[in-house]
């Protein structure tokens, strides 16, 4: 399964607007995306399509996120999410 570890650039972390855009982006692709802080075991990853789950991770700016995708658009989904997380909040 394609996966990637990405640093969360938005200073606020994965809350509010960045989280909302993250969930929106994950839902745009034909792929099951799951996330967790770097080093999270497969079973403990949460669904990227849930605002509750994503905000509930409490990931702060500067921390690293493990993103796993499965499905036809897995690679494209990972590219889009990586780009989003690499963008400072005021440019989102």
């Amino acid at each position, binding site marked *: 399964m394609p996966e990637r570890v990405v640093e969360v650039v938005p200073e*606020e972390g994965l*809350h*509010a607007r960045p989280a*909302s855009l993250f*969930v929106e982006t994950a839902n745009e692709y034909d792929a099951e995306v799951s996330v967790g802080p770097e080093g999270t075991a497969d079973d403990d990853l949460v*669904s990227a*399509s*849930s*605002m*509750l*789950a994503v*905000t*509930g991770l*409490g990931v702060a700016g500067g921390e690293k996120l493990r993103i796993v995708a499965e499905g036809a658009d897995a690679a494209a989904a990972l590219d889009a999410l990586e780009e989003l997380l690499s963008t400072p*909040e*005021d*440019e*989102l």
Partner: protein
Amino acid sequence: MSERRLSGIDVTPLTGVGTAVWYRPDADLPEPPAPADVDGEAELAAFEDARDEAEAELTAERERTAERVGEDEAAVFDAHVQFLTDPQIADGVTERIDDGLPAAHAVEATFDEFVEQFAGMDGKMAERADDLRDVRDRLLRLLTDGERVDLSALPEGSVVLAERLTPSDTAQLDPERVAGFATVTGGRTSHAAIFARSLAIPAVVGVGDALTSVADGETVVIDGTTGDVVVDPDEDTVAAASEGTEARIREDRVETVNGREIEVAANVGTPAELGPAAERGADGIGLFRTEFLFLDRDDAPDEAEQYETYKRAIETFPEGRVVVRTLDVGGDKPVPYLDLPEEENPFLGERGIRRSLGPDADLFETQLRALLRADADTDVGGLAVMLPLVTTVEEVAAAESVLDGVITDLRSEGVEAERPEFGVMIETPAAAFMADEFVTHVDFFSIGTNDLAQYVMAAERGNDAVADLGDFRQPAVLRAIDATTSAAADTDVWVGMCGEMAGDPELTELLVGLGLTELSMSAVTVPAVKERVSEIDTAAATALAERALAAASRDEVTDLLP
């Protein structure tokens, strides 16, 4: 039995009398039936129906709030939809229904699990807990079907009592049917307070636990002028409340008993507020905040878009003046297309006129072009342009030359641009001290008392612990106002005030005495201030102002007031 008085914080100068109705969204659900007696399929269908209905309500309330209160207040409903439709919520509820819980109990348990998780986290996450509670209560209201008070279908003359009112709650209230509301928690800047002012509902917030002593069905008076909730009122109190419910709306201009005309205008922050301001008898707009045009979007509004908005504002008051404040943003507000630097203290940083003469010079010029074109095309001549956060004479002179340049450009393009009234907002101690140097450049001053009091007293408005320091009755604040009016006294420069202080009828006489000739406020208080102006004797007002300026303390000032 005699009446009982509970005191809270007044938020609108309106009084209402009605029948108490407790709104308790947190009330306990009845014990669930045994799992064997629960029809799982029916409960699941009930949950899905409630969710669809809740989403439809949220969409409608979003629209209504954007229109009535503003885009900022409306955005919260977007987050609500995201939580409502979250797959984890759906999974949690479905699982619990499968385990034999009715839909309402399953919703409560599922949301509470997440509320608990979020409430335990810090700052911003705790706010998400409030959003989740709000969505939970909406679903529970739909699922329990009338067992909870339905705010959108209250009997006429209801006074709503609640622990607190959320954005969803207030969006449902019908101002025609609600005689007022009172809440246990909340302050002057709480959502409920802002909402009450926008819609002219009598309201008292922050009453404390004493409010829970009021029973459903008791008669209550909500006295928005004193901040009292009067329970089981005497006949005299009811009579006074019904009579003094609201000052008569008058559309004519008002003057003091000795014939000094005082312009009573409204502050507005969105075009939706223009119509209501005119309906409440405002002579014009004393502060048109333009930030709404620039926030919550990806690109700056172009000249054409701004032009339409300004034209509409000027046309709403064909006989009156419309004072437009140029863009006032800084590091405290995210504006994605402006490169706003991160600042240690954005309120003392690069904001307001400092940006307009610096990094946002293009934006400033575009805004002035749109304003002058709108003014030229409406041909009623009511435009006044006001600069925010001015501290030096160089800023005033520089802005003036930008304005002159824009006029020259427009005329060369064939637009019959006229020089509008040009003024500065007096909201810093520096501006008050330097007002006598500004008078040669400007047509008017408008004293922004919210920020002026904050900067003069070094006390933040929203902080209850220093609220007494930030009070407008502080002699230091009055002396800063006096410095401004004195600087303008023997010139053609007029001095107005746009800030909450201008909307307090108890202070009107003092302000007239200090030499202000224009007062601009929330539209809701326009009728009361107009009425007050027409009772004022100018000589007595001047004497009052002299005594207040000689006072050494806030208490001395308060003792002088009616």
